[in-house]
């Protein structure tokens, strides 16, 4: 067991964790942050995407101990004071989700993408979301949502 302390969605948390525990397991099982989900066991789907110190990571690909001393933002911490993040709002507006399982990861990845590139082309959006799978939407409206959020932000 290793003791870790980190900030998750603005709160300081501290726990003893097994060295092999993944960040996504820590978030879900220890903290009850079940908004972040697990879609695969090969780091392909991106459903587990969160921000670590402001950059997107696949939380199934990071050990909980690696997050020690750092700052994690999950889908549950994205809205501020009850107001949706512009990317969340754009996903709703553009019908960019159906079952919603990929959505937390997709939104976190899109936020990161727009942080890096506030005015992406369609191609840049598609490439930027390449690590996140969605089986429902065909990505059409997800691309539109990212474009909408970009337009709104600029």
């Amino acid at each position, binding site marked *: 067991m290793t003791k870790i302390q980190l900030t998750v969605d603005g709160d300081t948390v501290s726990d003893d964790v*097994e060295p*092999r525990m993944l960040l996504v*397991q820590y978030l*879900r099982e220890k903290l*009850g*942050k*079940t*908004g*972040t*989900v*697990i*879609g*695969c*066991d*090969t780091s*392909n*789907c991106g*459903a587990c995407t969160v921000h670590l110190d402001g950059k997107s990571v696949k939380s199934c690909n990071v050990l909980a101990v690696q997050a020690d001393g750092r700052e994690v933002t*999950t*889908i*549950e911490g*994205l*809205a501020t004071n009850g107001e*949706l993040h512009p990317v*969340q709002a754009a*996903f*709703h*507006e553009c*019908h960019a*989700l*159906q*079952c*919603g*399982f*990929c*959505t*937390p990861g997709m*939104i976190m990845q899109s936020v990161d993408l727009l942080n890096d590139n506030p005015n992406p082309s*369609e*191609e840049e*959006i*598609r*490439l930027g*979301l*390449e*690590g*996140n*799978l*969605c*089986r*429902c*939407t*065909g*990505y*059409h*409206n*997800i*691309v*539109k949502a990212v474009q909408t959020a970009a337009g709104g932000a600029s």
Partner: protein
Amino acid sequence: MTATEERAATAEIGRDRRRKEDQRLITGRTRWTDNITLPGMLHLAMVRSPFAHATIRSIDTSAARTSANVVTVLTGADIADDQGVIINAWPITKDQVSPTHLPMPSDRATFAGEIVAVVVARSAAEARDAAELVDVDYEELPAAVDLKESAADTVLAHPDLGTNKSALWTFDSGEAGTGGDVEETIDKARSDGIVIEREYRQQRLIPAFMEPRSTVVDPTGEQITMWSATQIPHVLRFALAATTGVPESKIRVVAPDVGGGFGGKLQTTPEEFITFAVARRLGKPVKYTETRSESLVACHHGRDQWQKLTLAAEKDGTVTGLKVELLADLGSYNALLGGGTPVLGAFMFNAIYKFQAYHFSVQTVLTNKTWTDAYRGAGRPEATFAIERIMDELAAELGVDPLEIRERNWIKHDEFPYTTVCGLEYDSGNYEAATERAKEMIGYDELRAEQKQRRESGDRVQLGIGVSTFTEMCGLAPSRVLGSLDYGAGGWEHASVRMLATGKVELVTGVSPHGQGHETAFSQIVADRLGVPFEDVEVLHGDTQVAHKGMDTYGSRSLVIGGEAVVKAADRVIEKARPIAAHLLEASVDDLDFAGGRFSVRGTDQGLTIQEVALATFAAHNYPEGIEPYIDAEATYDPINFNFPHGTHLCAMEVDTETGAVRMRKYVCCDDIGNIINPLIVAGQVHGGVTQGIAQALFEEAVYDDAGTLVSGSLVDYLVPTAADLISFDIDHTTSPSLTNTLGTKGVGEAGTIASTPAVVNAIVDAVRHLGVNDIQMPCTPERVWKAVQGVGAGGDDPTAGAAMPHFDEQEGGAQ
């Protein structure tokens, strides 16, 4: 403005309402089954056979049992008496050969991935660790892997059955009296017409919903509660009760948030039954969540057919007869629908064309592979692919445009209702209008001109335009039709409307959405029908204790059948409220009008809203003698017919003749799905559906090696397309309202998937047909395309190997 006008101005049906269900999903306030944690909950890990076919000689669980925090380890023998049986609800013939399907067999594993033991531990990680320690002594048996070889009984998947042939199901228009004798039309065409014979491969696909399946069972109440990532909570409850001996009334099944299904969660699974058995045995809540690798190997697969077609036509291209002979791979068991899935395609090979004679047969075959069952479209994509491919071959034979040959043969808009050679009555449609619109959207004539120019100049990059003028039957299904096909259940749907005292409305539906947006669309229907605000309607579903009656969600049935039940229940509420309103208004029932949510006394300004009547009924201080103070209502709707969405999908593909790389340039579709409740949701269904069909054409295949091991057993190898693999689509609609339901709607959930696959493959073949190519097997990998262009064939029995399509943007040289 009067209330009526105000309401009319904000009619809900047809409006692009943003979805009610989004708020939770975009903020992570979700209830996926795997999110559920209960006090004292234990976790399961499954031990799965690594062999496609093996006798289980013994299982040594001692090391696993003593592993940290392991509670118990159970084998098939341990739960033999209470594990139940996995049911096949659709024995397609009386003499169907079908192995008994135990959730956890104790004698023999019949596919790689079958569960042979289960470990129960205090955490999922500890259960998985201990599962590694279970020592199973297998004696490997020869495995029936290849479909055609298995059909020849070379190796038996189940030696005790004596054959792999499960059932031969046929339909013949001559025998059924719905058309002529197909052999006569073929003989005639051989002498003075055209006969086209082709064999197509429908590769095996994996539904690959994004949420891995998960089941939690809590046995600690009077009812045993099961939460499961399922499309079919009602069917699941029935199957558990019917085969485990637990009374149905003691079982509650809940489908909480479900992360996609596409048919893949239209199943009652060994995992669910084992979790149920373990929970009952231990008296503790238990959870099982599969890994993605387990999901790919154990969740049922789809498609997997060989299709032999013989098409007869007159010299001018008028089609006369069609003969279809299918081989369908069941995997090692007859799944819930099992052989019924190809049968669902039986009535669709004739598609929108006026054939005189038709013969269909499907031989279902048992193999030592993962079971197969419904996957988005279920039988109809296979049918549509085959007919739309062979219509292109007919056009090529005659040297005419593929749209011209279709137009010559399709049912004209003034010929509806039209009874097909299968005896189905197509109620409405307009193939001319949808095709005209699609041509306009893609710029058909310009593309043909560019194609001609590229051919003439011998361009390295050739252009192809693919056509798919599809129809499908959806809305499963009239119960009597299902009965006549020996399906084990009905096809009705149930709804109830509860008028709460505060004027809010609860709609309970028997369908079980998992991404389709029913909360929104059904709220729109109720809001319009009852004239209440959209926001005041709450849609409840997916819990057998709340929605006690239902047939769940699949087969594009929810709106066309479930929605009709909603309409009927809402209309009954109005009828029940009417005498109470009349009484309160001191008017005669006959003098009341109901519009925009308000009962008004004709010729006066007196009136009451239905929400006010609900409150008055709750108080029950003042209501007419002889009736109950109760205006809630329910309805069960059994459809009178299927409905038949159709559309024209056109796809432009560029093919690099030197590398075999393909690039999608444009994809347009004009679908006729009747009246639309919510265009935003419809667009989403079309985008997602089209994508899954494109994925079959270009990317996906479940590949097995000779030993029967699934080679594409992870998302690294099974290529679900990413955003970078796809383009944006152009979609539009024509509207021929369905005549078989009040709202005039047709199904849309599967349409895109059914239509798009042949459009894409037709486009690729069209691009290189002048180079002597007339088929490329799916998925159309660069290697296959390249081989086809080189004339070394890619249409035959060519296993998928090597890299599938790279991303369009990565293509070297670029088919730009």
